[in-house]
């Protein structure tokens, strides 16, 4: 199931928390070789995890992490604005309607529908809170997967080569993509809305304002 959890509420889900930060260490440190910090517990965490970000997490039936991504509002401190302006042509995105999305992570051998489910979760956040864009940092090879998932970001810039390459890109709200992404995630609209409501206590409340 999809959970939407702020960092400070994540402590109540210890198995989920522990496996998420371990999977992040596996993906970003071991597999991609990014310059990230892994602590004594085997967790990959950075300074932005301390800013009480909102995580969208796929929780497996056994309570372990299946995949996740991390959101912060661009009106406050963000990783892109503090570390990746050289990949955005110097543009520091700042708006209540643009959130940052980083640390897109999949557990080893996670089925592809988990990635789709995370895309659904991002779309629900956009729908619920009038967001128009996400600005994201991701490993460059992910673009191929995003394309398969039908949710392709505009890549603004990349650095490095091969598996460890890092890109910054923009996702845009597109209501017409929702059904397609839901289909790929093997999830009904009702189920997604139910999970959203479980986390936030209210419906997604779609409002399209041009």
């Amino acid at each position: 199931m999809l959970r939407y959890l702020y960092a400070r509420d994540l402590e109540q889900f210890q198995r989920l928390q522990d496996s998420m930060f371990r999977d992040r260490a596996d993906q970003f440190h071991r597999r991609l070789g990014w310059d990230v910090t892994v602590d004594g517990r085997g967790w990959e965490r950075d300074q932005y995890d301390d800013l009480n970000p909102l995580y969208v997490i796929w929780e497996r039936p056994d309570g372990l992490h299946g995949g996740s991504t991390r959101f912060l509002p661009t009106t406050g401190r963000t990783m892109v604005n503090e570390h990746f302006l050289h990949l955005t042509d110097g543009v520091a995105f700042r708006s209540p309607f643009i959130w940052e999305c980083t640390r897109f992570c999949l557990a080893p051998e996670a089925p592809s529908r988990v990635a789709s489910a995370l895309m659904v979760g991002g779309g629900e956040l956009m729908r619920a809170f009038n967001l128009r864009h996400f600005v994201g940092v991701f490993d460059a090879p992910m673009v191929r997967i995003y394309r398969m998932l039908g949710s392709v970001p505009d890549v603004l810039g990349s650095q490095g080569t091969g598996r460890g390459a890092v890109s910054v890109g923009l996702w845009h709200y597109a209501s017409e993509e929702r059904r397609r992404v839901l289909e790929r995630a093997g999830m009904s609209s009702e189920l997604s809305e139910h999970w959203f409501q479980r986390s936030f206590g209210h419906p997604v409340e779609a409002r399209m304002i041009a």
Partner: protein
Amino acid sequence: MGCYGMALEVEKYLERVERADGLSDIQTLIVDLRDHYRVHHVVYHWVSSDGEQYGCGTYDPKWVQHYVDSEYLRIDPVIIGCFQRFHPVDWKRLDWSSKQARTFQQDAIAHGVGNQGYSIPIRGPNGQFALFSLSHSCSDAEWSDFTRTHQRELILIAHYFNLKALEFEKNRTPEPSRGLSPREVDALTFLAMGYARGQVADMLSISEHTLRAYIESARFKLGAMNTTHAVARAMVEGLIIVGGAARAAQGDWPGRKEVVRTQAR
């Protein structure tokens, strides 16, 4: 409530926010907003990066004093629930389960706060935090309808109050060009020259979607309600130059219009 009244002219209202020259102007704007939406209260509460706190709002001063005297800050579920979060919250979704919280709620209702509330937490630069809240007495359905209808404009208004508050913050020097990058300045300049979005995107070698994100971001940094307003403001501030100077400086492009006009969003 406002959903039965006239739509707020958000642009005009935000222009007034932009012109505000002190906390007393902010107070007047808050009272006007409350009267417009016909809700019981509107409150803006701001914690600066060095921990200094300000509040503006329509609560009865007796309630404010009582709140301080009772140290409600420590048990208020709105403060506890919204602090360090960043999505708009209906007060019903907060944790009112403790006895203290329920007592506090009864006290708040007795002081005219209302049985409903909605708060927009704001994260500013350097750990600055603010909360913009509305409260009222009505049914759950009415409140949900009201907040759903007005969410986007309330988010905008909340953040524009916050931009103002940051401006008022002591010892704060205005950021040069309010953080607009050369790319954003280019985008606004081409829009001001009358190019359509598609053309501007082509000229900057970005997608039209990305151009929209540039504009969205530039609008916010300039405290502007829409693209036209952002272009006008950037011109007033001398961030973009159109007309003779730009023509002389930047040569010519195919399809350029001689008449300088601002591009409506």
